[in-house]
């Protein structure tokens, strides 16, 4: 990871090269892609970007804090289902569902002989509550889980396996409780948000820009966490947990916090997914999607916030184009990608960039600070070139 010396006395959390990186990403997402792609392709990019929220959370949780969660799909799903429940209730107003035996409840409940709206659906009639729930439900779930596990010092491999089991449990539960969750088909046929039809091309473009805006905000948040004292503690914890504990820090609380943060980010991603794609189903919750989200982060670079975004876009773009033309080859390619990333370049695209490209560019693009640093800077910079960990 880049161990940039804490330069000068400035307390601003973005280094100049970070600002340029974010500006370039914003330019790409807000100007270049909308101009270059037709509406259909742009919606694909919008869908990929919802996974980027999860990847962002994983950079903080896995890259910086060393907690590998294989259950991020659960949080993505929780956020997505919260939004889907609101939209579904709006879509199943009494007028729309007049032909059902119980009008006013979602159609799949009617098919499953449920005659009244279950209590936990009731609050999702309010948009304010739903917006809150998108962030709060995943975070609360992560809080309970994190408290139970980290306080008892369950970590590493065991944590990964338990979160994976949770992803399995969640899928089975959603599929099994068809009457309350829509079962394997998920919650479909979503129409309007506050009376605004989300199915039109115009609405989808607006939602794309909302999604990009939220993503950029979350990126700034991630940079803030990374450069704060908390971020440094997370890295210290990952590398020598006992030492941090013996220094008097409550290690488990930091872990709980970063786990909750990553869960909340995934929840936002899930809600944006529901809005843009128009449905939510258990196939985005289980083990396979959860682990695929980890690979986005790994390909982009588990230590690079921007790298994870590019990794997500790249892997998904490859997935779409490969499975369009050679569906047989896609799984082979994905599997090979997993192995190659782990064996050959564990820091992903960002690592390659830092080792091979950045040194040729100026300091503003993450290159060495030597050329720009004036001789007057007497303060010794321990590591001038961004070193890649491990």
């Amino acid at each position: 990871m880049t161990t940039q010396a804490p330069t000068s006395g400035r307390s601003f959390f973005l280094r100049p090269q970070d600002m340029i990186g974010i500006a370039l990403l914003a330019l790409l997402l807000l100007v270049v892609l909308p101009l270059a792609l037709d509406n259909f392709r742009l919606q694909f990019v919008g869908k990929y970007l919802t996974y980027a929220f999860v990847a962002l959370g994983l950079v903080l949780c896995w890259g910086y804090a060393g907690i590998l969660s294989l259950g991020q799909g659960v949080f993505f799903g929780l956020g997505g289902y919260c939004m889907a429940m609101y939209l579904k209730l709006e879509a199943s107003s009494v007028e729309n569902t007049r032909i059902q035996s119980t009008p006013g409840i979602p159609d799949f409940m009617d098919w499953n002989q449920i005659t009244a709206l279950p209590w936990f659906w009731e609050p999702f009639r309010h948009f304010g509550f739903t917006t809150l729930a998108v962030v709060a439900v995943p975070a609360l779930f992560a809080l309970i889980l994190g408290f139970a596990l980290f306080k008892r010092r369950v970590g590493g491999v065991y944590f990964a396996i338990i979160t994976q089991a949770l992803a399995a449990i969640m899928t089975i539960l959603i599929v099994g409780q068809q009457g309350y969750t829509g079962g394997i088909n998920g919650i479909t046929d979503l129409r309007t948000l506050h009376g605004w039809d989300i199915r039109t091309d115009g609405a989808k473009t607006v939602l794309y820009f909302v999604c990009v805006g939220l993503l950029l905000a979350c990126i700034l948040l991630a940079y803030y966490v990374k450069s704060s004292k908390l971020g440094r503690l997370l890295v210290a914890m990952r590398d020598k947990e006992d030492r941090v504990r013996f220094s008097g820090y409550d290690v488990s609380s930091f872990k709980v916090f970063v786990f909750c943060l990553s869960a909340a980010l995934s929840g936002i991603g899930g809600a944006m997914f529901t809005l843009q794609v128009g449905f939510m189903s258990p196939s985005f919750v289980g083990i396979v999607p959860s682990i695929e989200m980890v690979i986005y982060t790994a390909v982009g670079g588990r230590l690079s916030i921007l790298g994870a975004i590019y990794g997500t876009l790249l892997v998904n773009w490859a997935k779409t184009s490969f499975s369009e033309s050679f569906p047989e080859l896609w799984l082979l390619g994905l599997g090979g990608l997993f192995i190659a990333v782990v064996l050959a370049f564990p820091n992903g695209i960002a690592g390659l960039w830092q080792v091979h490209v950045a040194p040729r560019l100026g300091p503003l693009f993450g290159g060495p600070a030597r050329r720009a640093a004036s001789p007057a800077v007497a303060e010794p910079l321990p590591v001038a070139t961004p070193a890649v960990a491990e």
Partner: protein
Amino acid sequence: MFSDYSLAELSSIFLMQGFAGLILFSVFVLMALGLAIIFGQMGVINMAHGEFMILGAYVTYFTSQFFLNHLPSLFGIYFFVAMILAFLASGALGMATEWLMIRHLYKRPLDTLLATWGLSLILQQVYRSVFGPREVGVELPGWMMGSLPVTDVVEVQINGLFVMGLTIAITVAVALLMYRSSWGKQVRAVVQNRVMAGAVGINTEKVDRYTFGLGCGIAGVAGSAFTMIGSTGPTSGQLYIVDTFLVVVFGGAQSLLGTIASAFTISQAQSTLEFFLSGSMAKVLTLIGVVVILMLRPQGLFVIKVRR
């Protein structure tokens, strides 16, 4: 949930479900044994374990086809040949995997998880391309069909009994190998202190490779046994991988006895609940139970104290 049944009915329900649970238990134990060796002893998370098992199942299927077409007179004993072939095939693939991939990752256990997941995706696609996407089932030899009546309402299937007997035999063999042979002593020495084991002249790399191979080979045998009670498809292995990991973690990763005890608990809980609730809820409740117990007792049921 019990009030609808009389006492006699309840007891035979528990017996029948207990027997169904024992078959599930056998599959869990066979899969978990290999995993307990690889994960418990070596610390490698092998997500491709299910695919090694399925390789064994395919080998068994093709052996049965071969005997059916060319040696019909010996069809009754094809299974024993198939089991050995399955062990060899999965073991060889396992050793190749260790050599090409795993040995570079011993210091990064979480990365073995990702790499072996990639391997499992590749193997699934290879199975699908080579063997076809449809599930295949073997034909059981005549002596394995049918069932034995125990009482007038309780019956046990012979193939289930056979798989159970096989499980016991393999478990005993593994236990003897790990705890009574000099090779097992070397494996345990490497696990407890790699540097010291190397210093006293154990070839740790070779031990690693053979240990991984053995674990995968046992998975192959598990696949072989699995064909007796279910059909095999390219993705069948993935259905069991999460359960198996939970079994191993729940039992305490380094203890064979713990693995068996936890496999027994989980399979019995699941199959008994299955009768009273829907299958999916039974599984959910069992898994939640295991996760909650793991939260309370993270080190698992049985722990071997090792000074690190």
